[in-house]
């Protein structure tokens, strides 16, 4: 029994769904952010697995670009979370209803 690309795709999809559920369920902004990271990682896994199955390196290059974008996102997102925390003393997104109409 060999590990085919479908196994990796299934695992990536499962991790993506778990990350999405975490994003919708949790209220701590940091945990929501980590769930987004999990979703990005699972997409990377599917890119790399598909790249091997296709016989070229495009999947790996795409996952490198995703990593760069994720790093930039983490920098700005954590800065925003820290700024909100200093102003509101909470990291819960339930409290952040200042833009409610």
């Amino acid at each position, binding site marked *: 029994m*060999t*590990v085919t690309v*479908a*196994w*990796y*795709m*299934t*695992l990536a999809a499962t*991790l993506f*769904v*778990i*990350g999405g*559920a*975490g994003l*919708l*369920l*949790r*209220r*701590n902004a*940091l*945990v929501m*952010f*980590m*769930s987004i990271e*999990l979703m990005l*990682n699972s997409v*990377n*896994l599917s890119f*790399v*697995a*598909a790249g*091997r*199955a*296709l*016989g070229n*390196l495009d999947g*790996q*290059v795409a*996952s490198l*670009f995703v*990593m*760069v*974008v994720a*790093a*930039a*996102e*983490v*920098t*700005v997102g*954590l*800065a*925003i*979370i*820290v*700024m909100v*925390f*200093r*102003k*509101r*003393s909470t990291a819960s997104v339930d409290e952040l209803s200042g833009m409610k109409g």
Partner: protein
Amino acid sequence: MNPELVVFIVFAVAALAGAITLVAARNPVYSAMGLLLTMVSMAVFYVLNDAHFVAVVQVLIYAGAVMTLFLFVIMLIGVDKEESREEKIPFQRPIVGVLAAGLILLVILAGRTAWVVFDNGVTPVGTIENVADELFGTWMLPFQATILLLTIAAVGSLALARYEGKLRDTLADTTEESAAEGAGGDA
């Protein structure tokens, strides 16, 4: 049983356990540890897929730098505060369950259709040389764009940190509530 299958099963279980810990743990530090476990398992999967350079980058940047940054912010914000489990949006959990089940169904449905025909030809191994040839050849312009993106992100987070004091003064004039909180958070 071939070795790849054994390694896949062991680390797939580890990755799923890490992901579930991330979502279910009450303490954000435990969540971060779960994510760390998932990321290291991902690096193992990259090695299994001949993507050695991506695996190294995964361990160095994700498991190293990004998780350290996350833990730093968790410690800064305070780990002692428990998240309240009280639901403010009605039926949030059932809705999430339905959405997750729908997404799984969609993925299974999509998996039944073959969009891409895989040829089982010879795959180039993702060594640094091969990835660099691809990155600095075909993908030169997107690579330059990421340089711009990273610079913008660094300048943006600096600007957020610098701008905060000015913004608090402005808000203090307009609303009394943020003035009281701003003074409290200043200490």
